[in-house]
């Protein structure tokens, strides 16, 4: 999306710190992301956040509508959305904790945003809209092709938290331009409830986006999520047994080498100012040293995983080709 109207791709993303960030694109590439601040220069938050100064989790009521007491909220997803169709981009914040969505209105103008200081809840029939399974991801897009931006929501929970309502949800915008009116969430993809024998379906921690991947004129889904499966047991060949033994032996050696590298690094770092050139050089040198070890560890873990059975988990990205509807 083009946040600053310069015709180039910019990236807006929520973070687990609780603040939305923006990476502005230019002819030279992306700038490193920065927090999006409100008109008073304050961080945009719900009411729980990582405090970078105290290095502790913290809370505030600064951004609540005066006179209201919304439940504890933590904005980990954020998207730009021109709510009032005034030509500048407002923000929608997804609450990881309660499943609510809040909007931050942009009272500035295109290219010169000035965000309000309070979070307004997005409503459904006069009550806060709640996404079942809470919110992992938000995407504004026109799923039903009626010219209005709907919301595609991925839930935090699925089978792994025992919430059958989790998955990918479509929240239709049944309002009109400049006056969104969101409807009851409808499930597009539901979390699987039983362990399959291969990672064929997503289980929880849902992120989604949509695009016409096959060029047939409708939007297809891509879903990033956790997959769990129960790999059927089979007998290993003698050669596979030997490879498994070698992989396990090397993984143990790698674990010891990595532990020793970190112990030495921490010893050398002790007493140095973290921002000093010496500390930064030490960090870089340490990273150079451990990077190939982690890569080797990843390769051997993959090999080991391919030769073991039973319950497994990983993350994947699935493509759901839309056939109709």
């Amino acid at each position, binding site marked *: 999306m083009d946040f600053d109207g310069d015709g180039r791709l910019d990236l807006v993303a929520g973070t687990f710190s609780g603040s939305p960030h923006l990476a502005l694109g230019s002819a030279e590439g992306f700038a490193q992301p920065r927090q999006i601040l409100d008109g008073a220069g304050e961080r945009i938050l719900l009411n729980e956040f990582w405090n970078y100064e105290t290095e502790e989790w913290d809370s505030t009521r600064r951004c609540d509508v005066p006179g209201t007491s919304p439940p504890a909220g933590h904005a980990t997803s954020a998207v730009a959305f021109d709510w009032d169709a005034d030509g500048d981009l407002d923000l929608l914040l997804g609450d990881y904790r309660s499943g609510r969505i809040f909007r931050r209105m942009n009272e500035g103008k295109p290219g010169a945003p000035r965000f309000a200081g309070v979070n307004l809840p997005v409503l459904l029939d006069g009550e806060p809209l709640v996404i079942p399974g809470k919110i992992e991801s938000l995407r504004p897009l026109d799923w039903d092709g009626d010219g209005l931006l709907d919301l595609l929501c991925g839930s935090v929970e699925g089978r792994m938290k025992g919430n059958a309502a989790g998955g990918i949800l479509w929240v239709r915008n049944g309002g009109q331009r400049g006056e969104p009116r969101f409807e009851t969430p409808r499930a597009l993809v539901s979390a699987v409830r039983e362990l399959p024998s291969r990672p064929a379906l997503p289980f929880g921690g849902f992120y989604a986006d949509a695009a016409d991947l096959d060029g047939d004129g409708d939007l297809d889904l891509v879903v990033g999520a956790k997959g769990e499966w129960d790999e059927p047991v089979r007998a290993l060949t003698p050669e596979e047994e030997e490879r498994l033994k070698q992989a396990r032996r090397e993984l143990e050696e790698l674990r010891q080498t990595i532990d020793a590298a970190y112990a030495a690094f921490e010893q050398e770092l002790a007493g140095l100012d973290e921002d000093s050139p010496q500390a930064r050089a030490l960090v870089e040198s340490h990273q150079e040293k451990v990077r190939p070890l982690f890569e080797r560890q990843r390769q051997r873990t993959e090999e080991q995983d391919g030769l073991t059975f039973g319950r497994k988990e990983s993350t994947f990205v699935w493509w759901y080709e839309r*056939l109709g509807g």
Partner: protein
Amino acid sequence: MTTRWLFPLLLLSAAPGPTAQEGTSPAPARFAPPVLLEAGDKLLGARRLYPSPGFHDVDGDGRADLVIGDLWGRFTVARRLADDGPPRFGAEDWLLARDGEKLDFSNW
């Protein structure tokens, strides 16, 4: 560091119970059985913490590439390959900022 890891666990365990709105109605959409996407010769988003795919035309070729964010605030891009068949993507590369460093959304 311990405090940082405790917080997400506390969030999940302290989650509110179902509300009156929870529950969904079926959506009028039909899908083919899902397919695991690949990037180059690897599975896309494998072994990432909370892979978040988003479509963006990163290289300006008119095709939507897949940008994958994760819990660490780092992004990779898998570029859509130019052909007319089923969607195929090139190997995942780190998305870099103009300073040459990995784009870092500083998660916390």
